[in-house]
């Protein structure tokens, strides 16, 4: 009788112990991340001040990339909530306005202007300047961007190898051939064009710079 009572008692105690252990294990497993004091504090703070926390996160996500872009346009991040500013100005002294212009030329019955939209194919034509700045991938491009506070230097470069040059040349040759141009070379010319806005006509067109890209 006594033995039965003791066995029953221990069974109940043991079962209770196992159940408590089981609960303890899961509770700790679920809140493992929040088990240390610091994390508990963070969670409590987040629950208590959700709007403040949201504002801090939003501020960092919105203002951080914008400040980086203001410091150096080369450090513009993506994704970032930024619209294009295009804050350039033109000066119209004495009714004359000057504007830079880039044109591409190839050989087809003499030097002929290339239709850049057709040359780029499916690539949107507003990327043309960026592609020219990157030397059409035919030369090594290295860009360095510095931040002074804090002092960090970022570096970027285009994809450049013998194979990439060969493939890029082949692609450009094909695009030129489609328009009936010789596929051995093309030219990039930068002009400074001046207009008289009163008379609504071009006054001068000055060649500033010319680069030849050979594809042989």
């Amino acid at each position, binding site marked *: 009788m006594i033995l039965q009572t003791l066995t029953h008692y221990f069974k109940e105690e043991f079962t209770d112990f196992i159940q408590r252990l089981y609960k303890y294990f899961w509770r700790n497993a679920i809140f493992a991340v929040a088990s240390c004091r610091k994390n508990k504090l963070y969670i409590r703070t987040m629950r208590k001040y959700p709007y403040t926390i949201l504002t801090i996160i939003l501020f960092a996500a919105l203002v951080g990339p914008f400040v980086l872009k203001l410091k150096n346009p080369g450090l513009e991040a993506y994704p970032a909530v930024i619209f294009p500013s295009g804050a350039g100005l033109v000066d119209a002294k004495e009714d004359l306005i000057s504007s830079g212009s880039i044109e591409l030329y190839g050989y087809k019955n003499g030097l002929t202007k290339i239709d850049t939209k057709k040359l780029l194919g499916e690539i949107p034509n507003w990327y043309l300047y960026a592609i020219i700045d990157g030397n059409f991938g035919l030369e090594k491009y290295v860009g360095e961007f510095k931040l002074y506070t804090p002092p960090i230097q970022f570096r970027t470069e285009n994809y450049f190898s013998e194979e990439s040059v060969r493939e890029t040349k082949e692609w450009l040759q094909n695009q030129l051939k489609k328009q009936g141009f010789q596929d051995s070379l093309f030219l990039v010319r930068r002009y400074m064009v001046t207009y008289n806005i009163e008379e*609504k006509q071009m006054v001068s067109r000055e060649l500033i710079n010319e680069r030849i890209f050979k594809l042989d």
Partner: protein
Amino acid sequence: MRGFLSWIENYIRSFYQRIERNTSLSEKEISFYRIFVGLFFLFSWKGYSWLSDVPPGFFRPHVLTPARLFDNWPSSIYFFTVDAIYLIFLALAILGIRARFAFLGLFIFSILNNSFVYSFGKIDHGIFSSLIFLLLFFTNSGSKYAFFPDKKWKTQSIATAVFSLCLVFAFFTAGYEKALNWVDLNVSTSGILSWFYGGYFNLDRQDLLAPYFFDMPLWTTEIMDYSAVVFEVSGILFLMYSRRSWHLFLSIAVMFHLVNTLILNIPFLGHLPVYGIWLLSPFFLKYKFSGVIFLILLLLMNGLTMAATLWTITTLVILYSWNKGLYKKAPDNCRG
């Protein structure tokens, strides 16, 4: 310290609640609008597989983009797979089958793959075409007009408020730099002409009303410069003041884009569904099949003419909605 933090928390809460009141949408509006957004992106969708034909020499991502983690354009198989999955997500979102999950997928896919599109050395600013998916993820857009309705979350009004804050901040980023340069009280300089001449002579943006812009007197372009700056930096005031002022700000934004399309030939059509969340959704809900007109135009037309037509129709819809008082009432589920 705790008292101070609580005071700040209460102050910020009232700030958000005010924005929630001014920007909130009913579940019916946002759910019906979900179908339009899905179809809009489906019909105007160009996909990413064209990137597989771009030569490797053009790969020049910016320093701080996800594409920087790659050495070169991903393979054509990757882009074809992405296109297929993207289309599946769009179909799920339109039909309302796990729409919340589909919008999260669309957001992640569009952010990651747009970073490849922006790897020619220039970042475009169509971030809201991706963020709209994140907004729809947090709203209850999949809870009505859906084959398998989503469970309702309590995040709809705060998500809409945060999204609208992002929108006014984005306008501010454009206006801030302009304000420093364009507001110079000098009639012989012009900011808008810098956009115009650059586009007209370098990028062949010579369509629609662009040739007639030469006839504009210089002083009017100065007024346009200042108006653009005032509009872009003042978004937060419109957002905070009232529900009507927020709708007024968005209406001005639509007209701003219409003018940009007609004169500068810059369509920014990806912003149409973004403003439409507030400006078109009440109209679409009232006249259920009116959205079809937009979608038919997307299918039948292309290029600038289509963009100009869509912005014009949107302007007409807005004028009609103002006249009929469709923007007056805040939905009942609004907490603010």
